[in-house]
């Protein structure tokens, strides 16, 4: 009976370990790695609101020095959505590995390699990444008990403005788009 209990415990521990191991290897790929992106565009939307005057402009000074801004003397504008179109995953690519262009990520350069197998993106590897962000960091394993954790969850509420790290992700998408354009050709 004792042996049996020990055996069960060992098998249990093994299953637990397997589950844990699987979980820790979950790869955090974005849902839409084939986002085609046009950054730095902002649109002005008017609504019938007589007494507010807004301006909403965009300026991408890496391309040119002039800023373009538009003003709507009779409206209230609140849109700052970069116009992303999420293409569906029906596109198939030619097998092989494709190196994307070097993209400027403000903090340094980003360059990725897309590996296509069976017509699908198998892996995306970083060939270049801003160095200062990879600096060695000693990890403090002890979690502060005051801090709560949650799984991130998409929110449906309308927002006025969005905070996010755009710098490197723009560059990532630029480099990946370039790699995938080659894979399509």
């Amino acid at each position, binding site marked *: 009976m004792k042996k049996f209990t020990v055996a069960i415990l060992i098998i249990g521990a093994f299953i637990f370990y397997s589950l844990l191991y699987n*979980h*820790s290897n979950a790869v*955090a790929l*974005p849902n839409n790695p084939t986002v085609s992106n046009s950054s*730095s565009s902002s649109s002005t939307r008017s609504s019938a609101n007589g007494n*507010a*005057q*807004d*301006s*909403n*402009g965009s*300026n991408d000074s*890496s391309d040119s*020095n*002039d*800023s373009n*801004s538009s*003003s709507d003397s009779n409206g*209230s*504008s*609140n849109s*700052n959505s*970069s116009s*992303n179109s999420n293409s569906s995953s029906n596109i198939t690519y030619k097998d092989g590995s494709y190196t994307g262009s070097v993209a*400027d990520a*403000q*903090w340094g350069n980003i360059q990725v390699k897309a590996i296509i197998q069976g017509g699908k993106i198998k892996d995306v590897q970083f060939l270049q*990444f801003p160095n*200062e*962000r*990879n*600096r*060695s*960091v*000693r*990890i*403090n394993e002890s979690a502060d008990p005051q*801090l*709560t*954790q*949650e*799984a*991130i*969850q*998409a*929110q*449906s*509420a309308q*927002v*006025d*403005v*969005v*905070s*996010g*790290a*755009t*710098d490197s*992700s723009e560059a*990532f*998408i630029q480099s990946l788009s370039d790699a995938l354009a080659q894979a399509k050709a």
Partner: protein
Amino acid sequence: MGMPITIEVIDAAITQDEIDRVFAYFVSVDERFSTYKSTSEISKINRGELSPADYSEDMQTILALSKQTKEETEGYFDIQHDGQCDPSGIVKGWAIQNAANMLKAGGFRNFYVDAGGDVQVSGYKDGNLWKVGIRNPFNRSENVKVLALTNRGIATSGTAIRGQHIYDPHNHDMQLLDIVSITVIGPNIYDADRFATAAFAMGKKGIQFIEKLAGFEGYMIDAQARATLTSGLERYVLHK
């Protein structure tokens, strides 16, 4: 800086000239501080073409603020990399702050200034707090949190998709449970931005650094799509 800048002013008295003046300010900051422009002052400094006595007032301010921030963040905030000076981690928040101050000096109270996802919100929009989303780093079209803010700065440091090929240099066998982004909310965008930058460089313990800072809250997302919240973040969260 190579990033989209959006300004929305609610106050009825705003004119196109005022807005143009603020955009022109951002352009001038970029001309001076962009390490990607060979003619910028920072590029000249990095090529050794300028002596400290010839630095502009703004450059001296930024260098002094960078030094101060380095001291306040246990050295994690550092503008020197491989012998080159890149102060972009502090210039953005500082420039947004100055732009907001320009609008305030013009008598405007209700507006936001957004440069590449770092935002200063001031006053109200149609009587409501500003609704600010935190973008999902794994899916750019989604927000994972919606905050209601006024007179605050909110900055996010991080990247989309980081972590899959990054390993702990001290422990090569173990894949780092890495941090994808950290969003910091503070009394102004200058402080929120510089502390977000430093906290991101700290890795997992960055959120604890923010927790200890009075007046600041943070929302950290790791590569497993888990978020860690500082204890006071909840009061900003908009519940529908």
